[in-house]
Structure formats: structure tokens, C-alpha cells
């Protein structure tokens, strides 16, 4: 893995020579491609192997979830690339499927408002939504602005939400969601519920001042909050070393006294183990946890530029010739450790399914997703005047564009 290349090039006398930065560079250079392996071994030895108790049904369901996310992304990318009538968009999650799947498999995803666990998402929500159990056809409709979509066409990608399954929703802003999630955890603790609040956030969230508020208050108040940081190494075009002095962002969390783990985000079982540990702790009143999942996205930050219909991933797109852009070799290296492949191999290895059955399941999922798109894109468009509704619980606000 061409790891060094991910570190932005700088002129020697122009480089901020902070001690921690130097440490970062050194460590990255030393460990190179072995980083994720080293972490994997660590996680295996440290975190209780809760996955041993998962039933075969549950394991298959997790595999299905990973596949649903993957095929949702691929189908939508193809729509964007090939269907001129398609208007939806996405911040694609492909490559990160094992994180959402592993975490949500440890949660309560149904039940009344005082039962269901809550998951807060980000600007990259489709994976979290599917893993939490939203109705996929309705999500597809929503993303294409249909009036029968999950949110009536009001929100679309960056704002989807489905409280019925505890999917608190996407949020297009970097910063606020983790703080808000800590407030949900505060309420859960105050009312004596054993619910937990989970927030998925990218590495970009580390530098936001909200990070401190979230960690500090979660620690001080012993909140049942699980902060899942999906460290996919980049925020837009910037490598995370530009905004974070730590190699493992989890270090930054543990300083507050928050229980922190770093896991291989490509391996659903490891993610599950860490999530189960965190959920058990939170339900038992033992306070917050932070899980840093090392992962990678296969598409570019937003949409499908650089991608080809029918192919996975987006290569070589860098229109602005941005110096900090992720190198193609890095992407290819990460694709060697694909979360779908890893999950399939584990299931076959554990004797849960054989390879043929695994392939069959994938075909079933592909068909399911195809149907979801068929249904979603056949839904009615929105009525213009409805934009004046849902400002408050009741009523409509007056139109003002006519003067």
C-alpha cells in the first residue's frame, strides 16, 4: 500500500514541525501497509469476541445488510451515470459497509421511542440508514425527490430520517450531530432507560470544536453514547493528518476517560465485537465509548465522478489537480480488503454458508435492490405548494414569492 503518498507533499521549510506531526509521519512510514493488520491483531486480542454468540441467521442477515448497502450504492451510481432522468445523488458509502453493519447489528432497531436505540448519521447516510433498517424502496424514492419517499421528498440524501427504526437521521453539517446525539444519551440516562445513542461521524469531525463538547460531556455525565468515527483518511480532498495530530483519533477520545477502541473497519466481525462491548457497557451504565473504524471510501467525496457504470469505485478523478488528492494506488490497496469479500469468507470459513449459497444470496439482494429502484423511481413527484408545510407541526406558512 502506497501509504506515504497519502501524506500531502510540502516544502521542507514550509512544514509545521510540531512534535506530534513528526510522530505521525514517522509512525506512518514505519508501519506502512501493515497499519490495518497491526490494528486488526490488536483488536482481536483486546476486544471480547462477542461474535461467537451470533446465530447463523443473524450472521447471514449481516451479510445481507452489507450486500444491500453495496448494491444500493452501485445501482444508484449507475443511475447517476446512465439515466439522464435520474435526479438523485449520494455521498457513496461503498467500501465502508462493514462499519454500519457491524455497529447496527449490536443495536435494538425496533420498538417504541423509549425502547429503540437511536443512530445519528452524517452527510454520508445511506449505509447507516440501511443497516438501521429503513425501508429501502422508500429511501430510494426519497433520494429522487418523490412525494411518497421516506421524508415526503423534503429532505433527500443528506437529510433522510426514519424515527420508526431509530434512524435519527442524516445531517449535512460537520460538527453538530455528535453533540445532539449526546443530548439523546443524556435524556435516556435521565429517564432511566437502557437505550443507547450512536453517532456515526467521519474523521473530519475531529477538528470541529463540537468534538470536545461531545467527549467532555459524555465523560462527565457518563452518557450511554457510542461515537463511531469512520476514519476513511480523508475529508473531501484533505488527508486527516492536516487536521489531527493523532495517528489514532481514538487516542483523543480516551484522554477524556471515554472507553476507546480502534478497529479494522473492513471486517464486520471486529466492528461488531467492539460495538457489542460498547453497547453492553452503555446499557449497564458504564458510560460512553468511542470506536474508531479504519476504513476507506471507494467513490469520490460526492457523487459518481470518475466512476464507470457497472464498475465498482471511482479512479483517477482530480479535476482541480489538488495536491492533497488521494492516490489511486491507495484506493486499489484498500479494495484488496473489501468488506463484502471479508464477510463472505468469514461465513464460508465458519460453515454458515457455502460459496454457492453466498453467491445466491448476493443475487437475491441484487434483485431486491433493483426492485427498490423500480418502485422508488416510479413514485409521484411532489406538489409545489407542499413546501409550505412541515415548518411547524400544524398549518402552512404563507407563500411570499408572489409579493
Amino acid at each position, binding site marked *: 500500500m502506497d501509504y506515504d503518498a497519502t501524506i500531502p507533499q510540502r516544502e521542507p521549510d514550509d512544514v509545521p514541525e510540531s512534535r506530534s506531526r513528526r510522530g505521525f509521519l514517522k509512525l506512518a512510514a514505519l508501519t506502512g501497509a501493515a497499519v490495518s493488520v497491526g490494528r486488526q491483531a490488536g483488536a482481536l486480542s483486546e476486544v471480547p469476541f462477542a461474535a461467537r454468540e451470533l446465530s447463523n441467521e443473524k450472521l447471514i442477515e449481516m451479510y445481507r445488510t452489507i450486500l444491500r448497502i453495496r448494491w444500493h450504492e452501485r445501482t444508484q451510481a449507475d443511475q447517476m451515470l446512465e439515466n439522464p432522468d435520474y435526479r438523485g445523488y449520494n455521498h457513496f458509502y461503498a467500501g465502508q459497509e462493514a462499519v454500519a453493519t457491524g455497529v447496527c447489528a449490536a443495536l435494538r432497531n425496533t420498538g417504541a421511542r423509549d425502547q429503540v436505540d437511536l443512530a445519528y448519521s452524517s452527510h454520508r447516510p445511506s449505509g447507516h440508514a440501511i443497516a438501521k433498517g429503513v425501508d429501502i424502496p422508500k429511501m430510494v424514492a426519497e433520494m429522487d425527490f418523490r412525494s411518497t419517499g421516506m421524508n*415526503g421528498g423534503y429532505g433527500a440524501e443528506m437529510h433522510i430520517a426514519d424515527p420508526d427504526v431509530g434512524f435519527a437521521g442524516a445531517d449535512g453539517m460537520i460538527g453538530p450531530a455528535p453533540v445532539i446525539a*449526546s443530548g439523546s*444519551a443524556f*435524556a435516556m440516562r435521565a429517564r432511566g432507560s437502557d437505550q443507547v*445513542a450512536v453517532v456515526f461521524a467521519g474523521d473530519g469531525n475531529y477538528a470541529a470544536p463540537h468534538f470536545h463538547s461531545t467527549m467532555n460531556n459524555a465523560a462527565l455525565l457518563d452518557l450511554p453514547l457510542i461515537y463511531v468515527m469512520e476514519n476513511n483518511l480523508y475529508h473531501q480532498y484533505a488527508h486527516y493528518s492536516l487536521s489531527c495530530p493523532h495517528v489514532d483519533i481514538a487516542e483523543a477520545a480516551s484522554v477524556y476517560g471515554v472507553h476507546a477502541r480502534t478497529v479494522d473497519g473492513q471486517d464486520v466481525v471486529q466492528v461488531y465485537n467492539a460495538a457489542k462491548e460498547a453497547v453492553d457497557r452503555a446499557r449497564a451504565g458504564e458510560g460512553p465509548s468511542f470506536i474508531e473504524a479504519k476504513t476507506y471510501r471507494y467513490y469520490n467525496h460526492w457523487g459518481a465522478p470518475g466512476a464507470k457504470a457497472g464498475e465498482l469505485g471511482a479512479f483517477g478523478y482530480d479535476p482541480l489537480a489538488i495536491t492533497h488528492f488521494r492516490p489511486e494506488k491507495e484506493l486499489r490497496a484498500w479494495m484488496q480488503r473489501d468488506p463484502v469479500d471479508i464477510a463472505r469468507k468469514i461465513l464460508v470459513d465458519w460453515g454458515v454458508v457455502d460459496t454457492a449459497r453466498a453467491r445466491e444470496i448476493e443475487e437475491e439482494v441484487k434483485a431486491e435492490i433493483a426492485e427498490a429502484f423500480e418502485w422508488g423511481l416510479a413514485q409521484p413527484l411532489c406538489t409545489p405548494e407542499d413546501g409550505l408545510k*412541515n415548518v*411547524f407541526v400544524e398549518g402552512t406558512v404563507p407563500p411570499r414569492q408572489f409579493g
Partner: protein
Amino acid sequence: MAMKSWMYSVLEAVQHEMREDPAMTWIFELTPPVASNPGKPVINLETEFGRKRVVNTGIDENWMASAVLGAGLAGSRSATYIPYQGSCMPFQVIQNVAAKLRHKTGGRAEMPVVWIIEMTGQTPGFAQQHSCYEEDSYYMHIPGVRTVIPSTPFDAKGLMHAALRSRDPVVYLYPAGLRTLTEEVPDDPFEVPLDKAAVRREGGDLTIVSSGAGMPGVLEAAETLAAEGIAADVIDLRALTEMDTETIVNSVSKTKRLLTVDQSYYTLCPGAEVIARSVENVEGVKVKRVAFPDAPPPASPEMFLWMRPGPENVAEAARALV
């Protein structure tokens, strides 16, 4: 019914709602949620409901505001009291997250939350950052949260009940300078609607519109004017968002004279909106606007008290208008 201080009236409402709803939480910072009133039991939310439900942590108003939002989304009624020094620290999360959440989820997010945001403007000498009274306009431009501003202990209690019971998120602006007011306030819970202005006086010669900390001076001026034979309709906005246009337009249609009075900076003070709505709906209205100049409040009491609109300014402007 008893004479009650402002703070006691408010905490009586909060205490009632917290007794009714064991899930409800309260987050505070500087001001311990304690109030006493002659002849009444002391209210102390922290000791009565315990530190799991009533909590202060650090000086982080954004956390406070975000946390109650999160509590609401998790299904718990929740409120926080933001001191005036931190009044705009949580601006972004209210403006860009909470206010848009019901709309963006197609009506599926529930936010039974109240942000009590203190405003000052009363104490000479406290200067730019501690004598300002400007937040009304910032919060008023935000759709999707109901912004109210009481001007009496009675309304303070009634609006607090209504705010805590509302499924809409409410910004409850609290003009701290009015803390010393007392009046008869019922012991039992009651609601003052979140979208209705109050006609405090009926006249017919002109309409004076103000809100919050502007009201006592306006009422004093109206008294003076009445003695001079000038009878004013006095309207207390109470609701900044959604503003009660009907009450304003009814009065202005009759008087054709409109004076707005704000402690907020002139440019885009709430009165600007009152004027715009009035002249959009009624022809031939003569208007005047009294407001704090477009300058931060200075420390020197000589400068500050001259700049802050007082009863004489209101009376003088009214005389010039009729």
C-alpha cells in the same frame, strides 16, 4: 393567585411540567434553578428532581442547546436556560439544524424543546457584550422555531407552559432586565398562546408596537400621552415568529399612524418587519421607528442611557407622528 416575581412564575411552570412528566430534563449554567417568593415554598429544581434530570456542566452553551435538542429527538421534553453572555453561542445549531429538522424529515422529527435565551440591555456600565439587546432579530429571521418574548410575569408563566407543551421547538427570549417585575399570577398552570400579540391599551390616535424590555417604557409613555389627550393602541408582540400580523394590521388600519419601539439595533429591528407588514397591507400609513442606534452599547452610563430608547423618546416620537 398571588403577587409573584418573574423568576418564580417561570419556575412554577417548569416545576409543574417536570412533576407531570418524569422524563423531562432541564440544563442550566450560571443561574441555579432556584426561586423564592414571599409566602410560597422555595422552588429548587436541582434538589427536587436530582442531578440526573437537572444538570449543569461546563461553560458550553452550544452543548446545552444541542443537548436539549437531542433529548427532544429521543422523545424527552427538555429545556435549557442560556445566560445572556452565551446567547449566540448556540445560534448555528438552532438556525441550521433544529429549525430545519421538521421540514427536512417531512414532518417526522419531534422536538418538544425550549431554549430560554436571556437578553440584557438594562444595566448601564456593562457595555458592548453585556448591555446588548440584539438577539431578537437574529432569532426572528429563523423559520421553523417559534420565537416568543414575554414582557410580564403572567405572560412569562403562560408562555412557558405553552412552550413546554408545544411540539414545536421554541426560542423563549427572556429580557433579564424585567426580572424585578412582580404581578398577580395564578398558581395553577395556564397557557398564553405562542402566536398572539397582546393589545395592552386601546386608543385610536396611533399604534405603538413593541416587545419584551421595550414594553415598560412604552406603557409609561402611553400614560403620559393619554394625559395629553393622545390615545394610543399599544401592542406587545409577544410572538416574533410567527408574528401576529392580523392584530397589527387591525390597529394600523384604524389609526394610520404607526410607531415601533425597539431596544434592538435599528437596522432590521423587529419594528422594521412590523412597518413592512403594515404598509404592505394598509395604504397611507405614517410611520416612525424608535430603536437603539446601529452601534454597540457603550460602557459609559452617559452615552448608554442617552442612546437607549426611553419613555420620553417614545412620547416625543408619538407626538411628532399624530
